[in-house]
């Protein structure tokens, strides 16, 4: 160390300004184009789906490309054969998810973390089913439907208003409170089931009376109702005073106070809206889809799934349409993947694994959209994404090179997997066998002749054999 004292000192002075800056640091991004952000998200999503399918391949040897096809089959069904049932169900489930998303958007814009969607849906469906069971058949269907609609909406609103009131007045942690309300709601559902339908089965029979009227098919009316809801919420958030107030409260309660907005009133009012809409979805499920109720599955976990849908859409109702469609697509598609491989996968584990992967990757991708990582090289700062983009341009720039890069190795891979290798192995074997069988006697003779003469190296003997075969032929 002491020897190189002089030589060490000079570079350290040069290095000093460089060392002040870190190699990587994070900056806020302002100039991202929409198509770029969409491209980043989709890249991450596709990557996540393939990661998930790859796990299936490694675990059970399931062909990932076939699974990818099954994703589409699960969501859309056999459209080309004229069977649109699956497609309608897909649209209906997306609509329901969108509906829950619309219910959550106002609350989330206000930064009120309503994790109680499941409970609010369940309690709405419960009230709806109570009405159907108690009043169905005694009144005209349309009256029952209206009564159960109003009841479900009111009870859903009350269910969400309880945490909101405590949040507004005592600042009780709303995410924990609403989370607990989920379990109380589902518990109440099972209490009612066991109280109303005692006995061994404890299953609510499918109700024939008090159903939502059927328009063309079972699903269409639900989709239309959610579409109406969508327009209403869009106007409420964009053009009404209420919508403006809740976004101010979400940004800063102090600002709201300063402007003269009564934040307590806004919190309670918004949550009543949120709960009412969740109750409405519960009504749609009870009266229009299931006609029955179970404690654990009626809400379909949509309270949580919708949070993801809404959050991926950045609380934008229009974008939520697409995220809801996408999440339903993956859920249904993975269901089909599981069905196709039901001898390996017996539960929904693969679905939730892939969904979880997608969520995590999209959450991670969100960072690249909001911030940029600057890479510091020789005091020159460049965006890491730009470096990656430049790399891709360099590598894949010319189209021919792109094909060469991607498809040649893939082709080789498939060649290695299927056929060619086996043929290459079998052909010489067959030939050699034929020769052996035909000329067995000649070979024996040749051996006897050759061996005493050239024994030391085996190579020579073999070549000698071949020569002898040719000669004999």
């Amino acid at each position, binding site marked *: 160390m002491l020897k190189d004292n002089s030589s060490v000192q000079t570079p350290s002075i040069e290095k000093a300004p460089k060392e002040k800056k870190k190699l990587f640091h994070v900056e*806020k991004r302002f100039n991202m184009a929409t198509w770029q952000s969409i491209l980043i998200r989709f890249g991450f999503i596709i990557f996540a789906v393939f990661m998930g399918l790859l*796990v299936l391949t490694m*675990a059970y040897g399931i062909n990932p490309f076939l699974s990818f096809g099954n994703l589409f089959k699960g969501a859309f069904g056999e459209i080309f054969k004229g069977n649109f049932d699956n497609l309608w169900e897909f649209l209906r489930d997306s609509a329901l998810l969108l509906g829950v998303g619309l219910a959550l958007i106002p609350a989330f814009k206000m930064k009120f*973390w309503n*994790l109680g969607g499941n409970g609010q849906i369940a309690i709405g469906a419960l009230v709806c089913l109570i009405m159907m069971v108690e009043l169905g058949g005694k009144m005209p269907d349309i009256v029952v439907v209206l009564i159960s609609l109003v009841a479900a909406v009111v009870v859903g609103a009350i269910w969400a208003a309880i945490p909101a009131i*405590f949040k507004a007045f*005592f*600042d*009780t*942690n709303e*995410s*924990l*409170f609403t*989370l*607990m*309300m989920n*379990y*109380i709601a589902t*518990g*109440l559902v*099972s*209490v009612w089931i*066991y*109280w109303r339908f*005692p006995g061994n089965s*404890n299953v609510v029979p499918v109700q024939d009376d008090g159903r939502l009227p059927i328009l063309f098919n079972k699903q269409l009316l639900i989709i239309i109702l959610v579409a109406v809801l969508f327009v209403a919420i869009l106007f409420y958030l964009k053009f009404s005073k209420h919508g403006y107030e809740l976004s101010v409260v979400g940004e800063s309660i102090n600002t709201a106070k300063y402007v003269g907005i009564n934040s307590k009133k806004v919190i309670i009012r918004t949550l009543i809206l949120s709960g009412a809409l969740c109750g409405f979805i519960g009504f749609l499920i009870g009266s229009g889809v299931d006609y029955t109720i179970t404690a*654990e599955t009626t809400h379909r976990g949509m309270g*949580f799934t919708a*949070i*993801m849908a809404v*959050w991926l859409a950045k609380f934008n109702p229009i974008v939520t349409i697409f995220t809801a469609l996408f999440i339903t697509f993956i859920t249904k598609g993975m269901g089909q993947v599981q069905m196709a491989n039901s001898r390996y*996968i*017996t*539960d*929904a*584990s*693969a*679905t*939730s*694994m*892939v*969904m*979880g*992967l997608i*969520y*995590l990757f999209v*959450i*991670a991708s*969100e*960072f690249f959209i*909001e*911030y940029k990582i600057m890479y510091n090289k020789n005091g020159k700062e460049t965006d890491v994404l730009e470096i990656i983009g430049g790399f891709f341009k360099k590598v894949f720039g010319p189209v021919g090179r792109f094909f060469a890069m991607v498809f040649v190795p893939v082709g080789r891979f498939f060649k290695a997997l299927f056929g060619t290798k086996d043929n290459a192995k079998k052909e010489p074997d067959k030939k050699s066998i034929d020769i052996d069988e035909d000329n067995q006697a000649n070979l024996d003779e040749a051996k006897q002749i050759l061996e005493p003469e050239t024994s030391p190296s085996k190579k020579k003997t073999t070549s000698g054999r071949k020569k002898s075969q040719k000669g004999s032929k």
Partner: protein
Amino acid sequence: MNFLEILGSSLPSVITLSVVFLFGCIGETISEKAGNLNLGIPGVMCFGVVGGGIGSLIYMNFIYPAMPVTANAFGFVEFISYSLLILLGIVFSFAFGALGGLIYSFLTTTLKANQNVTGLALTTFGAGVGDFFVTLMCRDGGDDLFEVAARIYGTHLTNATLGPAGTTFDNSNWHMGFIASDNPVANIFSQPSLVYICFILAIVVFIVLNKTRIGLSLRAVGENPATADAAGINTDKYKYMATVIGCGIAGVGGLFYNMIRLQGGWNGTSNLQNLGWMVLALVIFTVWNPLVAIVGSLVFAFLYSIPSYINTDMVTNKFLVLIPYIMTVVVLIFTSIFGKKNVLPPGSLGVNYFREER
């Protein structure tokens, strides 16, 4: 049936369940004290199940054939073998749980993603991973290995009785890690060693959180990260450490659930997920205090398992299931109205800290 009889008959189940709760509760408490509301705890516990399964399979494949733990002879070799199993199980389940915590804190602390969303995503992912990989491990006789491993996990050192290796085990006198004996006191104090580890851990974590400088810094980060940052505390480091260690501990809870509560017979994620959500309730119920959590977890476990020990009609039964949640809500409300500082949630719970945005 009087109360004491119910208490006596349900106690074995209550204690094993309370340990699952307690592991999760300690982990979540550490994480929440640093301001990370980790809703991914059910998923993290499923991660722990996978890790524990891997550790147990490694033991059953490499160590158990060399050093089998046999019936009625619990000598030095058996003790070493037993400790290796416990060690492997803890290390692997901790590592897997910590992996979940690493994902969570990478997304929330480094990438500043929303905590609720990340937690829910982690729960979805963990549930899938848990079911998928445990089912995978249970194929080709893996479940039999799990059962043998579970028996060894359930051994308690005072009175080891195991079936001969490789044979089917007679479960009749072995209940939830207990040897059923006539002496109730012996019953209470003859537990698998993981139970003692858990209770000691709760005390250690309490001391670290409340009596040491590290704990002080951790709580400062949770209460007000901006102030902590100004005071020279590395907030990111504390958030990372708290979440990773907390999730690791919760992962060990997953190991305990699968190996001792279920005796190696995995029955799907949904039950464990329910327990995981109850852990979140329990953390509120015990006001973020690991010592209170020891009592709280026993209370919760009692309330959770009591319905199956009382002979009432199903309606009352189903209503009893609700009580823990209702109690949690009541505690949440009461602490928020009348609470002093030390029973309130950490100040920045659920909110990320990004220095440049302030």
